[in-house]
């Protein structure tokens, strides 16, 4: 069962006197299964954020269709209520942690979405406490958001999304502006949400973040360049390099060794396992040379 289906979607940003129109998406098709962890990779300007905006119905596609939980959101008979229903299912966490927090107190911000949905007060209270617990921010419930670190702010934003009981969360480069500690906090939270059954779509240009996915889509110049499991995608570093992306350092190392004739697989991302396959390959090579 698919949470989101994007079918052959195109989108062009209109130009003005000084700027020509920009075709941001050009026939993108992808499927996101319920409960899965999908990563969308692409360099800046590859169209990945436009895609997020289209899935969240902030922009509508020029061509093609977007289906959320079985309902075609691009059909002609879509009402405001349908859009609201879809937004109850699919939430989004943005890049800049500062620009998505509305209230002056953490718990008030987490409650914001539920308040919009008209959830009764005591139910909101319960959900807010639960959501803050999930992201580990209970201690900061009464704090002012502007005094939190970037990672903490993003966790507040995530709590706001989960308090609305959404099935799917799209993270639009939500880790890009964070320091390593903040990134780790947020990624750990995302992993936990996915384990709890929430569909996760993570948009990023950090390769290490992609290794945890069930499925990776690589976007380049508005098209899907390649897709598959992380192992499949990263076993072809040349393609990624062409799209001005990197591969994890482990893959790069294994790729270089393989080119020089060492028999190693490319799809090992954990440093320990990587060391192990190299050692094994070296042993094997020695045995061959010796024998």
């Amino acid at each position: 069962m698919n949470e989101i289906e994007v079918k052959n979607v195109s989108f062009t940003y209109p130009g003005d006197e000084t700027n020509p129109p920009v075709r941001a998406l050009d026939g993108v098709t992808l499927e996101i299964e319920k409960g899965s962890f999908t990563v969308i990779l692409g360099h800046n300007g590859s169209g990945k954020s436009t895609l997020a905006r289209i899935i969240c119905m902030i922009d509508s596609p020029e061509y093609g269709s977007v289906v959320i939980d079985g309902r075609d959101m691009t059909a002609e008979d879509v009402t405001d209520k349908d859009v609201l229903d879809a937004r109850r299912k699919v939430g989004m966490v943005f890049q800049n942690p500062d620009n998505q927090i509305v209230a002056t107190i953490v718990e008030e911000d987490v409650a914001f979405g539920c308040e919009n949905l008209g959830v009764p007060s005591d139910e909101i209270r319960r959900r807010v406490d639960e959501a803050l617990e999930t992201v580990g921010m209970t201690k900061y419930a009464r704090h002012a958001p502007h005094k939190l670190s970037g990672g903490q702010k993003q966790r507040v934003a995530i709590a706001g999304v989960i308090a609305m009981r959404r099935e799917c969360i799209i993270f639009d480069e939500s880790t890009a502006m964070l320091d390593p500690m903040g990134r780790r906090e947020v990624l750990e939270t995302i992993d936990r949400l996915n384990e709890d059954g929430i569909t996760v779509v993570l948009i990023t240009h950090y390769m290490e973040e992609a290794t945890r996915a069930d499925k990776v889509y690589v976007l380049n110049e508005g098209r899907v360049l390649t897709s598959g499991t992380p192992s499949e995608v990263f076993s072809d570093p040349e393609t990624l390099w062409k799209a001005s992306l990197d591969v994890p350092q482990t893959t790069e190392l294994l790729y270089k060794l393989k080119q020089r004739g060492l028999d190693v697989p490319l799809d090992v991302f954990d440093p320990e396992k990587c060391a192990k396959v190299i050692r094994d390959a070296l042993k094997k090579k020695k045995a061959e040379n010796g024998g």
Partner: protein
Amino acid sequence: MAVVELRGINYIYNKNTPYEVHALKDIDLEVKEGEITGIIGHTGSGKSTLVQLINGILKPTEGQVFVDGSDIWKEPKKIREVRFKAGVVMQYPEYQLFAETVFDDIAFGPKNMGLSEEEIKSRVIAASSFANVSPDLMNRSPFDLSGGQKRRVALAGVIAMDPKVLILDEPAAGLDPGGRADILGGLKKYQREKGTSVIIVSHSMEDMANWCDRILVLADGKIILDGTPDKVFSRFNDLIGLGLDVPQITRVAAALARRGVDLGDVYTVGYAADKISELF
């Protein structure tokens, strides 16, 4: 000769208030001419304070700052001149762009220095070429550019002041791998051709390992490690203990060493691949 020298620096925010923070503690530091120095540390370690001390945005609570051999606070009225010698590119510098054209924005610094029109023009052209800003962007509005282009224009704006030392706070933050290589590669080229000293403050261990001659690790307002990248990354257990990351490749090398394959101190993929190749 040292282009930047800090002697006995202490910096305390909001001194004598309940919000007092001792951001830097007894820092002694010399940055040699023509080196790329990396400063690593996580948020709150005092990195940004250090940068603002070097170009006189902040005044040390205690201690002296020397830039190009002279004490910058000897004549507080002339502090503006220090900023031309120690050029700072702040974090997310694209947000400081303001002028109508790219040219005018890059020319802002040189104009403040009181240079002649011709001198300004030649500096802007030279700086844009170092920062990879293409000449046909000169008459465009900086607000029409892409994120990466804006970042490079902001960088050119500081390079155009022709500083003795160029200091960058997270120059590659938020950029994709292509954009990172553009900026950092451009800096390396600039440093080689002009011989300017460069100080880069960053979280990214991979980038620092690739581009720096020397790395300082800051934690809790103190310099706790100082040396060449291989020396610093060889202490990777300490770095992890500080909540910092080491390059993934260094972790692989450490795991290999535990399995009896010792590659020595490794922090770049190319070097690791060469070392392993020697073994077969």
